[in-house]
Structures are given as C-alpha cells and as structure tokens.
C-alpha cells in the first residue's frame, strides 16, 4: 500500500518499499508513461477542444496543467483514460495505443490510473466508504485487504467521520475529498487530478497537495489540472499551459502565469 508507505513509515524507507513492485523505476531509468502525438480532439458538435497537442510525460513526473476555463484541460484527461477517443493523433499510455486497445482491455488500463474528476463522479447509491472501496473491488482485491486500505485513504483526506454518508449528504469539499481518496486507494501508477482542490479551503488544499507530492516521490506519476496560481508558482514543478486547445508553454519550474 503506497498510501500506508507515504505516511506511516519514515520517509527514507519509502523508495525501498516500492522497489520490488512492477512499474517502479529508478530515477536514472525513466520510461515514458504517457505520450501524446499530434493529438486533435473535435467534439461531435464541431468544437475543437485540442489541436496538435504533443506531450511526453516520463514515469515519475509531476506535471501541472494550467490554462483558462475551456482551454481543453479536462478534454486532455478524458483522452488519457479513454473516456473520449482522439479525432486524430495518438495517445499512448504505458506503451499501449489507446485507439487500438480492444474494448475488453480498457478496464485494465483504467485501473492503472487514479482519476479525480472535476465533477467528482461519485456513485450516488453508495456511501463514502463504498465509493472508495469500489476502486479496489474492481481490481479484484481480496475483501480482507479492502477494509484497512479504505480506512487509511479516508483518514488521509480527513473523512473518517463521514464514511457512512451518501454523496448527497456531503458538503462540496467532502465530495471532492471522497473523489481524491478513491483515486489514490488502489495504488495507481498514474494519478490524474482535475482541479482537485477547487472546493477546498486553503488548509486542506495544501494537505492534499502534500499528499500528491509524497505519492509522486514514490514514483507515481501525477498530472494535475489547477487554477491555484499560488500552488503552481510555489512548487516549481513542470507546468504545461494550454490555451484554446494548444500547448503554449511547457517548462519545468514555471509559475501559473506566462512570464512575458
């Protein structure tokens, strides 16, 4: 359990904990986890959400995706989890071209990813605990290991007290934290977070960012769309900026706003 490793063990022990696992790489031997080649996405109504996007994300990267409302950030993320297919160009995740992936293999690819959706996408008839457990159940995790993992994830996002509530009985921020817990609980190789702190107060926001950073230190790749300029500017990570569907900036250690 990565999450356990992240918080319950001393920091220096962490890299060792993941060494034997598949998909863990030393810092020197970084593979490209995600490659977008000249991707264009045109929605059925004719709107072009992405144009000629080229993007390479090596395993273990932490990438901020920024850009104004409607720039195409969420669309890019939908392409990565194959919720939508690219109109042209290739999306290659962990060596697999998503356009050519047979239908029945799609769930396997999605299980490598932990996604925080902008609109949360919680299951309305399941409680917070069940929503988080769901991400483990789909991977076929034995029952005995699901319970503890879920409790740990809920503790990290501060929702232990709300575990038995249904999504409609939660505040906006609590729903968002449930979505975050679900995205992290199954120990994914890639975390995609679409404005994961939009409904959170600055304190909890910062805790969530810290959690993502620690997970990233363990080798998990993180792609995070955000409008939080303070966080982007402070962390000095790689920043990819979109505008009207095009990548207009891709630099390491950049701020939220254009330099010019």
């Amino acid at each position, binding site marked *: 359990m990565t999450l356990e490793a992240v918080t319950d063990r001393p920091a220096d022990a962490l890299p060792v904990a993941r060494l034997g696992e598949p998909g863990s790489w030393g810092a020197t031997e970084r593979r490209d986890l995600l490659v977008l080649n000249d991707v264009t996405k045109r929605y059925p109504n004719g709107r072009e959400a992405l144009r000629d996007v080229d993007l390479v994300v090596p395993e273990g990267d932490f990438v901020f995706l920024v850009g104004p409302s409607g720039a195409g950030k969420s669309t890019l993320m939908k392409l990565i*989890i194959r*919720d939508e297919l690219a109109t042209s160009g290739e999306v290659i995740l962990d060596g697999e071209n998503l356009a050519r992936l047979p239908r*029945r293999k799609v*769930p*396997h690819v*999605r*299980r490598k*990813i932990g*996604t925080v*959706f902008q609109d949360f*996408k*919680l*299951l*309305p*008839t399941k409680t917070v605990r069940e929503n988080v457990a*769901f*991400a483990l*159940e*789909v*991977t076929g995790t034995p*029952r005995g290991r699901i319970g503890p993992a879920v409790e740990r994830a809920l503790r990290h996002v501060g929702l232990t007290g709300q575990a038995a509530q249904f999504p409609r009985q939660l505040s906006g921020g609590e729903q968002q934290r449930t979505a975050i817990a*679900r995205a992290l609980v199954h120990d994914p190789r890639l975390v995609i977070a679409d404005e994961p702190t939009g409904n959170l107060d600055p304190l909890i926001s910062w805790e969530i960012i810290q959690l993502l950073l620690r997970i990233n230190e363990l080798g998990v790749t993180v792609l995070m769309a955000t409008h939080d300029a303070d966080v982007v500017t402070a962390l000095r990570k790689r920043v990819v900026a979109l505008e009207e569907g095009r990548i207009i900036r891709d630099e390491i250690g950049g701020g939220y706003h254009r330099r010019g």
Partner: protein
Amino acid sequence: MIGFLAFSLSRAWQGFWRNVAMSLAATATMTLMLLLLAGFFIVQNGLLAALTFVEQKVEVEADLRPTALDADVDALELRIEALPEVLEVDYVSKEEALRRFREARAAQGEEDLTRYLDSNPLHASLQVKLRDPADFGTVMDALRADPAVERVKNITDLVGRVVTVTDFLRTAGLAILAVIGAIVLFIIINTIRLAVVGRAEEIEVMRLVGASDAFIRWPFVFEGALVGLLGATLTLATIAAVADPLGAFMYDFFRVLPIRVGAIARDVSLLVLGAGLGLGVVGAWISVRTYLIR
C-alpha cells in the same frame, strides 16, 4: 468465482433496496404482467379441458339388424373394443333406445310422438366412444363391414364441425397466449430498461473507474432476477388466495365449466416462476448491454 457470485448477489440485494422506489415499481409491473399471463394460461387450459370433454361426446353409432344373433353382436362388440382408436363400446337394446328417445323428447318439452305407435320402430345399436374424433372413419368402416350391422349413422359432418371448432379454438388460444406473452416480455424488458436508464450515470461512473463489463453486469442481472422472483412469488400468492373462492363462486354461478386451478397448479407455478425469472434476467441483461456497448 464463488467469491464473485457472492459479491454480485450482495450488490444486487443492495441495489434493489437503495433504489427501492424503482425496484418496487418494476416488481409491481412484473407481478401484474405475470398475473395476466397466468390468468390466460389458466383460462386456456380450462378451454382445452372443455374441448376434450366435447370431443369425447363424439360417438359412432351403428344400428344392428333385428335379425342379428346375440353371439354375432357379442363378437362384433369385442372386435370393435379391441381397435386401438376405440375407447369404449356400449350396447343399447331396442327398449333402451325407445326409453332414451322418450326421455329426450320429454326433457325438450316436446310432444311424445311414440305414443301414436303400435310397436317399437327403433333398432338395437352399438355406441362407440373414440379416443380421437378424427379417427371416426376407420371405426365406421370396421362396423359397416360387419353383417350384423344394418347401417352406421353418418357423423362425417358433425365430426368435421367439431374438429374445426376445437382446432380453431386451440390455435387461437395458443396465438393469443403467444401475443400476450410477447406483450408481457416487451413490457417487462421496457420497465427494467426504464429503471436502468435512471442508473445510466452510475454505470458510466463504474466504467470510468475501471470496472469490467462482468463486474457491472452481474449485480444488475441478479437484481433483475430478484425482481422476477419477487414478482413471481407475489403472483403465485395472489393466484392461490383467489383460486378457491373464485372457483367456488364460478361453480355456484355456472355449473358447467368450473375453472380448475388445482389440476394445473404445477404447470402454472412453473410458468410463472420461469417467466418471472427469465424475463427479469433477460430484461436486465439487455438493458445493461445498451450502456456497456458504447
């Protein structure tokens, strides 16, 4: 495998109760449609029983020569009784024939013409009951060929008419049952579809989180089975509760054709349970399929 089954079953149970308004609406529809189906099945069975009863009334009647010897008649009777098409042979003497004729006239309230007669003009006869009225030809030929027989009453027309009517009613009954079955099938599938449409978003979210098709489908299918079983149980309970008083009432009211549920109870139970379970499962399967394919 067992684990997955148990998991799906518990999820189905949960799904049923967490969408209880929809589940109950679907169950109610299932129950009513199964009642309709069962009602028709019972009525059709009653009809078939009545038809069989009518068919058994078709008899071949052979008047015997007044000169025939008793021994010859006995031999003929035995020979006819041995035919595979024949159910039963009755010997009716001249006197018996006159008595029956008088009774029939009296029962119809008509004048007794025989009182104007000096002697009994009627013949002794053999009355042959058939297993299947369509076989009357063979039996008639066998009788006609015997020297003791003066003439065989021609029932070709009558048999033709009875067979036509019973065939028609059998075919029509089956056709109506089939049409009603199709309507029931469609309505139930439709109802389950509507219930699943309300959960399309739920299915979509499950897929996005990485659930395989089987993982999503089976709880839904079991939920459909649950709706079907519950509907079937309610239907059978209703039929059981209604059968006795209704049967008694109909028997009081109309002494000819009481609908006997008891005799076909097993068939009805099988039909209702099978249809309920089958429709629930098929309905759920088809409904979920729509959302899995895209």
